[in-house]
């Protein structure tokens, strides 16, 4: 668990707003190299990082583990008097969570900013009830417009900083768990495996551009050309007030194995059987339509790839305080490792 925590700590510390994942590449490469898990690592033009672990057997099939590297964020659309920035969202972000939130502005140098918030004293009656758009908000940098122009331009990415906060009962709060947490869970799984006993090569793709259309997953899967794939993403853990249909997935009950037209049924059933046999906690969910993850992009690559989807329950998704129960992440690592070891 400690090793998983340190992976999460590292992975969540890099910038990587969707479309700007290359900002994370150098540090990510350096860190992953120190782990000694992969025989080969690389990056792609569509923002993906990948590593391949070879079992040493000739013509071994390749199993691909996917998590996405990018996070939701913003991009600057206007530099305003007084050091304010207007921004547009990248990926799905609710405007109402933003006032007074801290952000990092990744310009020529990285500077801090805070979303402006109109104090209640100054609001018109009923104003707080009105719908808010991200494009109505401003980021306050504290700089003059002239200073700001030297650092920031239209198109500069803006993201949430991640400060991990350990809560009770192995709960952890932070930003960017969607989906850096899952990258950490995959790498932790690969660290559990004994290469010499494997019958498959394993590729890990930390794919870019997921939040904006699954582009890193489809192109990197095309490049790696795997025989099977396991997609790991986060899912919504049930909280009071969430729709009744989501009651089945709870924090602390293990990774969520997903049945869906966008996953492979036989591979999914096999994963369930392995979890039962190895007594690894898991839960089940069904996505009769879209999974909202990379599973479909990977599944439909080239001639089609049998794809399994396991999701880690998360609260407060796409906010600066996402909460995960680390036991779920750890048990997901165990399940991934068990599935790969059984091949």
């Amino acid at each position, binding site marked *: 668990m400690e090793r998983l925590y340190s992976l999460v700590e590292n992975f969540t510390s890099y910038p990587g707003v969707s479309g700007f994942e290359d900002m994370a590449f150098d540090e990510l490469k350096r860190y992953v190299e120190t782990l000694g898990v992969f025989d080969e690592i690389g990056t792609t033009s569509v923002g993906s990082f990948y590593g391949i672990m070879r079992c040493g057997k000739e013509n071994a099939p390749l199993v691909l583990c996917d998590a996405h590297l990018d996070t939701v964020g913003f991009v600057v659309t206007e530099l305003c008097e007084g050091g304010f920035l207007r921004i547009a969202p990248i990926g799905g972000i609710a405007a109402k969570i933003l006032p007074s939130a801290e952000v990092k502005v990744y310009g020529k140098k990285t500077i801090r900013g805070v979303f402006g918030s109109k104090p209640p004293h100054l609001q018109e009656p009923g104003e707080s009830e009105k719908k808010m758009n991200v494009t109505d908000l401003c980021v306050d940098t504290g700089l003059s417009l002239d200073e700001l122009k030297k650092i920031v331009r239209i198109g500069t990415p803006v993201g949430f900083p991640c400060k991990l906060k350990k809560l009770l009962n192995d709960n952890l709060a932070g930003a960017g768990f969607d989906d850096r947490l899952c990258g950490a869970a995959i790498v932790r799984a690969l660290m559990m495996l004994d290469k010499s006993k494997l019958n498959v090569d394993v590729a890990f793709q930390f794919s870019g551009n997921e939040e904006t259309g699954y582009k890193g997953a489809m*192109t990197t899967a095309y*490049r790696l050309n795997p025989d099977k794939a396991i997609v790991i993403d986060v899912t919504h853990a049930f909280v009071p007030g969430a729709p009744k249909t989501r009651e089945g997935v709870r924090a602390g009950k293990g990774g969520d194995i997903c049945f869906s037209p966008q996953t492979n049924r036989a591979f999914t059933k096999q994963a369930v059987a392995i979890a039962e046999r190895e007594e690894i906690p898991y839960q089940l969910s069904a996505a009769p339509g879209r999974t909202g993850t990379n599973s479909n992009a990977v599944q439909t690559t080239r001639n089609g790839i049998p794809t399994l989807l396991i999701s880690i329950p998360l609260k407060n998704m796409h906010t600066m305080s996402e909460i995960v129960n680390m036991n779920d992440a750890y048990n997901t690592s165990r399940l991934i490792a068990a599935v790969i070891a059984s091949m």
Partner: protein
Amino acid sequence: MLNHVKKYQNAFSVSGYETELAEIIKTDLAGIADEISIDAMGNVIVLKKGKDSSKKLMIASHMDEIGFMVVNVEDNGMIRVAPIGGINALASCYHNVKFQNGTQGILVVEDGTRASDLTANKLFVDIGADSGAKAKRKVKVGDVCALAPMFKKLSSKRYASKAFDDRVCCAISAYAALNCKVPAYDTYFVFTTQEEVGCRGAKPSSFAVMPDYSIALDVTPAPACGNPNHLTAKLGNGAAIKIKDSSVICSRKIVDRLTDLAEANNIKYQYEVLLAGGTDTSQMQIAGAGSHACCISLPTRYVHSPVETIDSDDLKACGDLLIAFIENGAE
């Protein structure tokens, strides 16, 4: 370049029916092409070999424009049409339309429609026929029409026309193909089909080319009166280097490279962040194992109206920037 724009403007080229323009472009570029072909989707693919043939650059501009398809000829001779692509009903009604066979008509609105209820499915074409039978001699179900060609010089350096989206960019691409020195990489000038209905031509042509680098050329909406949609690219402020639209986030590598080339060559440029609307850029980015993709956008007012308006200085800046990239490459 303006002569090319005018010529391309007159061709009939609604999404799915781009053959006429494809042949014109093919003829224009036959002289400079190392290879030239038209694929099953109707995309024109022109290869100009470069210094380094280990890398491929794809340039896409789309030949098609939005239009209408006949869905029913009514007994009284009125022709009910359905939109092809994102029609702006308000901007289109009561304008001349022209069918592929040359038949002219007026786009009119169903009687009793209030302005607030005006949508593309309330539109009819009146070709002057006084009965269904007479109308059917000219037009049948499945025929397509588009706004009739119009090209006006406004004062200063500005021009208004229908379908600058994206003929003007086809003209920029053709201009670059004709005027660039030896390209850095093998360069594929692709004139795509069916962009307005979902980038359907760019998808297979990108897979056929499998580029390492790609540049789309398209128009981007520029504000005129007020700017409620937070548009960043302004008319007259130069070539717009795309940061993102709703279909793509452009490669930082290419954004930075285009910026450097514009600075080095004194080409006026600006950045574009577009919140709604997609381009062929996305399809080139995801072809095969992916490419470094970006888009040079021409700021255009009143996009998808009969009076799309551009500035000829921006046009030139886009052409110069494209040529600079073709000749100097991404590194």
